[in-house]
């Protein structure tokens, strides 16, 4: 059978007879990589553009239509030492990019206006105490208005829109007092300018917008970067399926190009990327990613298979069904919808703060006006003082207090391998006081590992590893990896469902089922020690060895669990796997609370029970069966190897083999929440100092500008401390 790779799904026309494709590339870190890739790809004839984007870790390629097969670029990159895969921009990411450009444009306009208005304001401030003519002052005020009004109308859009949305939904957020403050400050300044008054606040209003936009742009850039990396990781998983394009002809196509009714081929060692029904063949499949159950299930004609199952022994032909009709998925999706709805009711710290803040500030301003009128001042002066209170309390520092901490903390988490999916994940993670772990794929590694590798002579392990390279069986792959085997043995023959054999130096060596190697005797003695392990035997002549292969705990799981205990969190394992397997893991890790054989609904029930007791649960899980409970928990985390659905649901995703990111993330989140609260107090403290001055009516635009920038810079500097955590996080980085 002929296999071809078909990437035409990702190719788009770039005009003028050119074609374009974007590739996500793994391992691009420096200028050297950038130059190497660009040169290597440009050297291919007919390539017109090869440009690396180092921030997003992607390559954009263009070539003359019909001259090249995109698969060639991927092969070329592989020769250069990079793994690459076509990348399709998700609509969510395209929106983020557009949003980030818009914010940057707003910031540019606001910064331009601030600088020019300041240039006009400083002569006015100094002129008021020297010899400036009133006509000159008015001229400068009018010029300021000319610059500040259109600039604020343009650059204020992000705030006005968000405030309007909040008001339309009958809530408030921080953008409501910001919008009111800016609008009133500008409006009053125009009136004052018409009346030839001494003070106008164009500078303060536009400066406020500039500072807040700096915070928004930084926040947006971090979010965009996280999304780009997450998008790359999804692309590099290279979810492809082998589709029958003719009775005997198969083609490797991206999953996105598969339709219901198509027939796909599933070979041993491959993970199924679609939902469907077996129409031909017989095999064992591993559904642990879906159910958490590590025992293999036998699949033959008529057995449904779900995306994420691993095919173990035989080759299967699968007819693709419509994903929504699959009962397991439908059930999980239903649970997921309910759980997600419950969580969207969470109120962010910033929103809670603005809820208290806006009424207090607006009431203070109103009382100031009333107070001055009662004290005998004119309405005009009273209103001017009232507006001055609003300007000076305009939540510049408050608006920056939380986003800046969030940006710095998510940047630090990003560096230590934790990606944030949800904007408010940091706050919720910091509040978590009970952690529920799933076992399979979360506490254990998703790949199999040879448990007794240390007890086997290095020479035999090496030989078995080389032999294992000739087999597609996942257990064999584990042996090959344990032995770090590189080159396969020439002339090795695989016997389907049995094992591999080869001849080395005149002696026959075999790797496979114990019966295939004549090692049943050895297995009967050893297998009952470890109920969830698979065994694979190796023989060289009369010499016989048994490998015990199982999903191993993550290398640092024990240390991480030990490190979590002094952090005042409850620990628990909820697993869909069998009791002996869960019990063994719980004992090894020292977690006293565990439950085995739990269904997705049971997991949710347990989380709800904990919630009623006032516990805030962090759920760490990876399987598709965990997705609903990930959504039900207060906050959730998934390893990058998780099923698609779980990864999309989890608030945080961590990369790599170690479990350490769980501790790191908890530490960073707690530190960040602490700093957010501290920043809120700093901002409130500033207001307590500034408000009496404003009420007394002696605020000049100079005081307003100085107070506003001073408090904003203080809050930003404090936020920078979120980069490090107090608990010696460096030891976790390795």
């Amino acid at each position, binding site marked *: 059978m002929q296999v071809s790779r078909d990437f035409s799904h990702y190719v788009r026309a770039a005009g003028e007879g050119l074609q374009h494709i974007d590739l996500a590339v793994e391992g691009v870190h*420096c*200028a050297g990589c*950038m*130059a*190497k890739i660009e*040169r*290597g790809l440009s*050297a*291919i004839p007919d390539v017109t553009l090869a440009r*690396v*984007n*180092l*921030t*997003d870790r992607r390559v954009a390629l263009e070539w003359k239509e019909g001259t090249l097969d995109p698969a060639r670029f991927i092969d*070329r990159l592989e*020769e250069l030492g990079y793994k690459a895969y076509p990348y399709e921009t998700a609509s969510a990411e395209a929106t983020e990019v557009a949003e980030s*450009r818009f914010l*940057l*444009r707003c910031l*540019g*306009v606001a910064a*331009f206006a601030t*600088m*020019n208005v300041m*240039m006009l304001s400083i002569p006015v401030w100094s002129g008021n105490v020297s010899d400036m003519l009133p006509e*000159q002052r008015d*001229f400068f005020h009018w*010029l300021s208005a000319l*610059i500040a009004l259109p600039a604020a109308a343009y650059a204020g859009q992000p705030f006005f829109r968000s405030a309007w949305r909040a008001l339309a939904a009958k809530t408030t957020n921080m953008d409501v007092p910001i919008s009111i403050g800016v609008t009133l400050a500008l409006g009053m300044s125009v009136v004052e300018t018409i009346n030839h008054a001494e003070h106008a606040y164009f500078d303060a209003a536009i400066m406020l917008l500039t500072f807040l936009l700096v915070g928004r742009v930084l926040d947006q850039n971090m979010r965009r970067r996280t999304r780009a990396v997450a998008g790359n990781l999804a692309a590099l998983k290279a979810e492809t399926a082998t589709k029958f394009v003719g009775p005997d002809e198969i083609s490797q196509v991206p999953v996105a190009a598969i339709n219901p009714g198509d027939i796909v081929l599933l070979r041993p060692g491959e993970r199924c990327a679609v939902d469907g029904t077996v129409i031909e063949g017989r095999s064992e499949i591993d559904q642990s990613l879906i159910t958490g159950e590590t025992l293999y299930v036998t699949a033959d004609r008529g057995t449904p298979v779900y995306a994420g199952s691993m095919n173990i022994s035989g080759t299967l032909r699968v007819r693709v069904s419509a994903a929504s009709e699959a009962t397991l998925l439908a059930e999980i999706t239903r649970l997921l919808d309910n759980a997600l709805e419950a969580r969207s009711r969470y109120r962010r710290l910033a929103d809670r703060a603005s809820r208290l803040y806006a009424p207090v500030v607006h009431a203070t301003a109103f009382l100031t006006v009333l107070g001055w009128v009662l004290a005998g001042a004119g309405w005009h002066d009273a209103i001017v003082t009232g507006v001055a209170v609003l300007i000076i309390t305009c939540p510049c520092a408050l608006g920056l207090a939380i986003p800046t901490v969030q940006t710095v903390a998510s940047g630090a988490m990003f560096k230590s391998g934790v990606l944030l999916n949800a904007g408010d994940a940091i706050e919720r993670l910091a509040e978590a006081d009970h952690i529920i772990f799933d076992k399979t794929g979360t506490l254990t590694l998703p790949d199999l590992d040879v448990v007794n590798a240390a007890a086997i002579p290095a020479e035999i392990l090496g030989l078995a590893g080389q032999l294992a390279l000739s087999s597609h069986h996942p257990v064999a792959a584990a042996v090959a990896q344990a032995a770090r085997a590189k080159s396969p043995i020439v002339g090795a023959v695989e016997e389907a469902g049995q094992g591999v054999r080869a001849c080395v130096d005149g002696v026959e060596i075999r790797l496979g089922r114990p019966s295939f190697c004549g090692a049943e005797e050895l297995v009967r003695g050893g297998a009952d020690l470890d109920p969830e392990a698979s065994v694979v035997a190796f023989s060289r002549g009369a010499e016989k060895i048994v490998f015990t292969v199982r999903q191993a705990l993550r290398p640092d799981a024990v240390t991480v669990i030990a490190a979590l205990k002094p952090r005042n969190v409850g620990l628990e394992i909820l697993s869909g796997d069998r009791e002996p397997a869960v019990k063994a893991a719980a004992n090894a890790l020292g977690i006293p609370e565990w439950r085995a054989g739990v269904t997705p609904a049971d997991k949710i029930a347990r989380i709800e029970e904990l919630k009623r007791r006032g516990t805030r649960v962090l759920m760490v899980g990876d399987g598709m069966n965990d997705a609903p409970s990930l959504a039900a928990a207060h906050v959730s985390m998934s390893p990058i190897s998780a099923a698609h659905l779980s990864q999309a649901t989890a608030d945080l995703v961590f990369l790599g083999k170690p479990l350490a990111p769980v501790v790191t993330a908890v530490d960073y989140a707690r530190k960040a929440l602490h700093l957010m609260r501290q920043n809120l107090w700093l901002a409130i403290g500033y207001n307590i100092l500034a408000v009496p001055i404003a009420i007394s009516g002696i605020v000049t635009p100079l005081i307003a500008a100085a107070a506003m920038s001073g408090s904003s810079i203080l809050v930003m500097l404090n936020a920078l401390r979120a980069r490090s955590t107090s608990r010696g996080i460096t030891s976790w980085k390795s």
Partner: protein
Amino acid sequence: MEVLIILVPLALGLGLAGLVAFLWSLKSGQYDDLDGAAWRAIADDDPPQETQSDLAQVKR
């Protein structure tokens, strides 16, 4: 004070020119890859050995 008639438009004009330059650079995608741009500035244009060996590999 007549000098203001020249100086004020001049100052605003310069500011506007800066703004236009910024918007142009944004539109032409110069902020899309800040990490890469930082390195490109110091990258060598044409290291001869690498290019040739790369070419040779492709031809083979």
